[in-house]
């Protein structure tokens, strides 16, 4: 298990090799990156296996006081700030921490990344920067894996930032067009704003605990709670820290009001969207909250309420936008945001397991959807759903897997999404009041709706002739989709408790104490009804076109307007940037030149020269004037002497 660090290291190693030698390697060295991630995937199984066989006796392992999960921590010193042992010196570490949460994420990341990279081999074929693409890809994978392995906040932050920059590079991959450029910049800066919060939070915790180690921080919190803040971390600090951390999480996980970057991020290559902006990076925020759950849930868990509210608002808003958006990838993007919101909601509702479960289910399904969308774009070169329709005739497999993904996220039973969403609803109904539950259900309804809409518009109805040339994608693309499809289908089954010692995911990833799987019948029934109903409605509307929405559209045009303009977030931000930020900086720049430089700096210089020019006039060139000067000087001097002596 202590060899888990190999997983990221493979990819870290692959990236520079590709950058430097890529152009000399066959396939631009892309296979290197695939090899690396595949190696990571293999190692993941060893890690899982050895964790299953591990117990408290195993080196570095212990039962976490907070989560109650078997946790293994392997620490390495990085460097020391200040002489070792001296007062106030800080030693910085990078070590790995392995518990079910980590393992789950490892599995998700390695698997999806592997799939996506194989997919990309075909998808990105012939791109001038083919090698660079894969280099950044494995860089990203490495960073993401480090992020989930990190056992201290510093390393986590490092990985966090690296993930961000890789996402920047990949979104802006086609930088020749202006949109990707802008999108990339937007993504990085918006998330960066959250990161400021994260960093401050980390430093705050460090200041209180004196260490960046997560286990130390959690321990401090635990002690604080037990001693009612006498020692350890006080409630104030814990709450502040939690909120600051959450700020970072909001940035990465595109929660309102930081969600604006994710839709634009769709300017990147589709596989990138699949990997980074659906399955892995965007869930880093959720992971962070889950990872630092002890801090969030400490004392009376006020932060979790905020998490829940933010999550709910995000989920609703995004779902509503997804419903009206016409760009296929953007629909998926908003659905991603919406589901991230759901995960946050679930975390906020003490649905730890549910959140992680949904994270996985969504990860597989959404990756699948994006890859499907990718293969659609690949063959039709269209992105606007208006241009599509009836594609199932030309690309059946894509249609199939896409539908699987859509249904899964829509919450149709048996599929992964259903179970995880059900868990979430359960948590909400248990721990939050009815309003939450109702809105959650409404979100579920919406997500079923827009999923159905996308699916039916694109693949059903009759084929447009401009898409006649469209064709099924090659095996290199379909194979990964198929594999993901299988997972999207069957993954939900791990939620049950099977015969044998595996009591369902609830006993694997949990916070506090493991729970067997259980199923609230009425809730399940409601959600099934909603989902199925929504899909039927969508079918009738968009495939059969038997229901006409024009009346509703005209009736609620103003709402529609607001939604279609994405609640004017971008406009507001744009205005702020143009008017406020650039205004200020422009003023400062002007101030620096006009005031500081031209007046405060040049002023004295000019004054001095003026003084010189004026002062020299006292030398008139007339000898008697000089004598006069001397005489006066003499008198003055005599008086001065006089004064000094008597």
């Amino acid at each position, binding site marked *: 298990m202590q060899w888990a660090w190999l997983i990221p290291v493979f990819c870290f190693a692959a990236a520079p090799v590709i950058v430097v030698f890529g152009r000399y390697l066959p396939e631009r060295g892309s296979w290197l990156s695939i090899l690396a991630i595949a190696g990571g995937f293999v190692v993941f199984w060893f890690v899982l296996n050895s964790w299953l066989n591990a117990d408290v006796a195993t080196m570095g392992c212990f039962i976490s006081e907070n989560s109650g999960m078997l946790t293994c921590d392997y620490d390495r010193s990085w460097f020391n700030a200040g002489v070792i042992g*001296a007062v106030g010196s800080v030693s910085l570490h990078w070590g790995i921490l392995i518990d079910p949460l980590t393992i789950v994420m490892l599995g998700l990341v390695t698997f999806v990344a592997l799939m996506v990279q194989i997919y990309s081999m075909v998808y990105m074929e012939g791109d001038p920067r083919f090698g660079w693409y894969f280099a950044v890809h494995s860089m990203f994978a490495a960073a993401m894996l480090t992020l989930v392995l990190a056992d201290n906040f510093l390393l986590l932050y490092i990985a966090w930032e690296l993930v961000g920059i890789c996402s920047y590079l990949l979104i802006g991959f086609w930088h020749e067009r202006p949109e990707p450029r802008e999108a990339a910049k937007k993504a990085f800066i918006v998330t960066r704003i959250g990161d*400021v919060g994260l*960093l401050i939070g980390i430093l705050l915790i460090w200041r209180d605990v004196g260490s960046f180690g997560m286990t130390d921080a959690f321990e401090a919190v635990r002690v604080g709670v037990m001693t009612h803040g006498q020692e350890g971390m006080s409630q104030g600090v814990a709450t502040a820290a939690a909120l600051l951390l959450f700020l970072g999480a909001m940035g990465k996980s595109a929660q309102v009001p930081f969600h604006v970057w994710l839709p634009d991020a769709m300017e990147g290559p589709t596989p990138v969207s699949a990997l980074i902006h659906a399955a892995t990076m965007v869930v880093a925020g959720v992971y962070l909250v889950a990872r630092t759950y002890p801090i969030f849930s400490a004392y009376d868990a006020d932060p979790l309420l905020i998490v829940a509210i933010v999550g709910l608002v995000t989920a609703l808003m995004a779902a509503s936008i997804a419903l009206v958006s016409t760009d296929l990838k953007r629909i998926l993007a908003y659905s991603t945001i919406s589901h991230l919101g759901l995960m946050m909601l679930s975390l906020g509702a003490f649905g730890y397991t549910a959140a992680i479960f949904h994270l996985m289910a969504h990860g597989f399904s959404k990756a699948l959807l994006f890859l499907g969308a990718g293969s659609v774009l690949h063959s039709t070169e269209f992105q606007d759903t208006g241009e599509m329709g009836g594609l199932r005739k030309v690309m059946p497999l894509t249609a199939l897997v896409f539908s699987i993904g859509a249904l899964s996220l829509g919450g149709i039973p048996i599929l992964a999404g259903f179970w995880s969403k059900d868990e979430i609803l359960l948590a909400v109904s248990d721990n939050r009041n009815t309003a939450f539950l109702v809105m959650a259900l409404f979100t579920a309804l919406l997500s079923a709706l827009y999923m159905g809409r996308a699916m039916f518009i694109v693949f059903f109805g009759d084929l447009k002739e401009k898409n006649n040339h469209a064709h099924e994608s090659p095996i290199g693309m379909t194979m990964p989709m198929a594999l993901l499809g299988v997972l999207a289908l069957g993954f939900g089954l791990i939620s049950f408790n099977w015969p044998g010692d595996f009591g369902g995911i609830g006993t694997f990833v949990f916070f506090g104490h493991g729970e067997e799987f259980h199923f609230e019948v009425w809730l399940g029934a409601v959600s099934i009804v909603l989902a199925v109903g929504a899909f039927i409605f969508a079918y009738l509307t968009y495939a059969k076109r038997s229901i006409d929405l024009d009346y509703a559209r005209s009736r609620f045009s103003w709402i529609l307007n607001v939604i279609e303009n994405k609640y004017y977030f971008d406009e507001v931000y744009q205005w702020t940037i143009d008017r406020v930020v650039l205004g200020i900086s422009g003023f400062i720049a002007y101030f620096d030149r006009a005031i500081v430089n031209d007046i405060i700096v040049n002023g004295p210089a000019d004054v001095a020269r003026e003084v010189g020019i004026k002062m020299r006039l006292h030398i008139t060139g007339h000898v008697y004037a000089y004598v006069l000067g001397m005489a006066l000087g003499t008198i003055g001097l005599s008086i001065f002497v006089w004064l000094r002596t008597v």
Partner: protein
Amino acid sequence: MNDFNQVALLLLIMVPLAGSLLMMFMPGEDKKEAWYFAIFVSGISLALSLIIFARYDYDLGGFQFIRTYEWLPGPLDINLSLGIDGISAPLVLLNGIILFGGVLISQTIKHRTRDFFVLLLALSAGVYGVFAVRDLFFLFFFYELAVLPMYLLIGVWGSSTDFGTFLRTKEYGAMKLILFLVAGSILVWVGILAVYVEAANNGAATFSLQGLGVLAQTGQFDPTFQTWVFPLFMVGFGVLAGLWPFHTWSPDGHVAAPTAVSMLHAGVLMKLGAYGIIRVGIFLLPEGADNWMPVLVSLGAVNVIYGAVSAMSQKDLKYIIGYSSVSHMGYVIIGIATLDNVGMGGAVLQMFSHGVMTGLMFLLVGAIYHQTHTRDIMVLKGLVGRMPVNSFFFAIAGLASLGLPGLSGFVAEFMVFVGAFRTYMPLAIIAVIGAALTAVYILRLLARTFLGEADPQWPDLKDASPIEMSVGAAFVGIIIFVGVWPEPLMRVINVGVQTIPGV
């Protein structure tokens, strides 16, 4: 080998100095030989600095390579006493690196080549001197020596730029720079005299930093005196460190200066100021320093924000980098002002990393400007297509300066934050926010200049020349190395920082 330790520092100072004096008598104004010779000399001094840094024993700590040459004993008690500690060792190394790089890429200097290198070497000798001496007189001596060549270096080999609304001639830049720096140094000078007089009144008239340090340690300097004199050092050295509001010389100087000079200017020269604040201000006037630190740290925070914000709306590459240096020196200042061993260590590390980083940036800008003859980011675009390596290096440097983990900038800034959080939390938060602002203008710069369609305006734009490439690669290597494994630097810096009074 021990006798090497005896003369190491003297050699360190004398090699470039002698080199520049020798070159004065070199026949021929614009010969290429001058360049070769300069490479040779700076190469030797780089080797020397490497050896010295490597042979600095961080387990022992304290001052090493100590040697004192009697110069003017008697009432003044001025002696050329040499020695470096953990603070100056990395900076010596830095100077060696930047100088060598700067000389290497200066083959573009065709006009009065010889004089250029004469001055450049003299300047670097001054810098070495400041880092290596332990005597107030000689510290000031070399300090001025490092400043004086800048005037001609910028004035003769610099470039004037018309920014539409205003014009920045090289004469203006050079004159402004030198007047500013000398204005700063007169404050320092007065401060030095004041310290000497105070010491004399305490019956121990000396200019030796060691002796004065002992006086300071034993509390011979009366606190009110310290409180009055410290600002002289703080502002005087601060001017060279780009302390707000005495920073404007720096961007203008950059805009006017030729590449190598910009590299040395931002890479090393600005560090002299910060170093002076530590070595003279804090070592000799601990109590005074203590009283003034809140002011200094606030100014540092202003530096960070002000520099970043004004960099945002600049259009000239060198202006952007210049203001970003102002902003980054803010971190150094904050780190110093924390008087906290982590923060202080961060400050020193930041000096090093920022030196390399900015040096790299100016190198690349020079390579671009040399071909396109413009630095306007509104005009330049899509360079990555034509000069991928150059752009890649620039991206690395930029990312380092916006504090991307894994690159040297992050480690340093992070340590500064840690130190500041312990001491001045609110300002630390401001500084962290400043780090986010950096991202804005760096990304803006990268996006505008390097990304996008390759511009047909310069059809035959070549990538960085092999020399520039290798120097750049070396710098990038250093940036990454320090970012990933700072230990080798840190253990030296740590022992140095440990000895600072009040830490």
